């Protein structure tokens, strides 16, 4: 049916936010600050 409609469907997987991920986010945030973000929108 999708092909007939000219649609291409890609299934997405979901991963819940977990504690480990939050810790890693914090760590990577600190890492990002050290990187300086030359390309960052904020800068």
């Amino acid at each position, binding site marked *: 049916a999708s092909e007939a409609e000219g649609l291409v*469907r890609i299934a997405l997987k*979901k991963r819940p936010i977990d504690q480990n991920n939050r810790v890693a986010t914090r760590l*990577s945030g600190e890492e990002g600050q050290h990187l300086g973000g030359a390309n960052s929108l904020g800068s």
Partner: protein
Amino acid sequence: EDEGDIVALQNYMNAQYFGEIGVGTPPQKFTVIFDTGSSNLWVPSAKCYFSIACYFHSRYKAGQSSTYKKNGKPAAIQYGTGSIAGYFSEDSVTVGDLVVKDQEFIEATKEPGVTFMVAKFDGILGLGFQEISVGKAVPVWYKMIEQGLISDPVFSFWFNRHAGEGEGGEIVFGGMDPKHYIGEHTYVPVTQKGYWQFDMGDVLVGGKSTGFCAGGCAAIADSGTSLLAGPTAIITEINEKIGAAGVVSQECKTVVSQYGQQILDLLLAETQPKKICSQVGLCTFDGTRGVSAGIRSVVDDEAEKSNGLHSDPMCNACEMAVVWMQNQLSQNKTQDVILNYINQLCDRLPSPMGESSVDCGSLASMPEIEFTIGGKKFALKPEEYILKVGEGPAAQCISGFTAMDIPPPRGPLWILGDVFMGPYHTVFDYGKLRVGFAKAA
């Protein structure tokens, strides 16, 4: 970098939705984020030897692909929370049943740090515009259109918020599935090609205006970000209403205690709000917005450092206080109530790009938060903007809002990530350069 590419909105660590693509012939499988906030495709390379992150993920082996074409041009992308570097290659990319031929992509040979090491995805497939593509590489989406693989230059996202792990939703290339949304879409034009950026109006908390975006804010629909990021002044008001822990700001407290009454008097005397902070001596006025008084001269700067009054945070705090007070005055609050309320807000300032915890038991008393897009209000309920981490007594609740201040002319800016794109089915219409939102099914 030399070309001044701007790529860095994403908080990839928290990205929640992934899909699978193939690169090469036969297709080598990779799990990627379909990211509307960037425009390059990259996957880890088999030639990535010195970054641990590469060993945790699938790696592209050029030698095993019959359609591989060498390019070799070096490429690097620095994100807010990490970076990758490598070189461009060309190969076929399989997306669903489609095979996109001669697609430029980055083989990442360096993924330093923890950012991509613990990531559950291998790479990123950017769905933004070529204007922000590093190396001006043609995005996969453009190639799909060029090669006539889809009839309509539109793609849409549907996130299944009620699904367990493994059933996250669907991205539809070539149009939208009517089963994924309810009612009609509200469309707004793309205002700055590069990101899927559009103009947004006022943000309301519990039906009341927060004032800050009443005159207009920019917003970017970004599937590569989990949370909703917006101006500190609004996030602080939201934090106060949902009981989110914040950081006490002494600058904010000082502004209220020492300048609060003066600011109120100036507002009541109908002084132009943008001029108030310069008039009380906390900012200078450049005609368009407040600027810290600290930029006037080095001598001034040193003096200001010593008395601690004229620093950037004081100017920022003053500008926020003006908006908050203005808004309270429009609600006919008394001066005492206003000063007391602003003082309370000073305890709720969010740490930039940080997360805020809230009490899971208080969801029922939290307000709806509404975003005005295309003249219509798009509400988020507490259960939609509060994220639950863990289950049972160990469950923790975190606010889906985070603070991020982008100065004019680009800002103030909102990033509408998965927290918004979950409740609202989002259509990215490349042909008509517009973004559409409708209630998700």
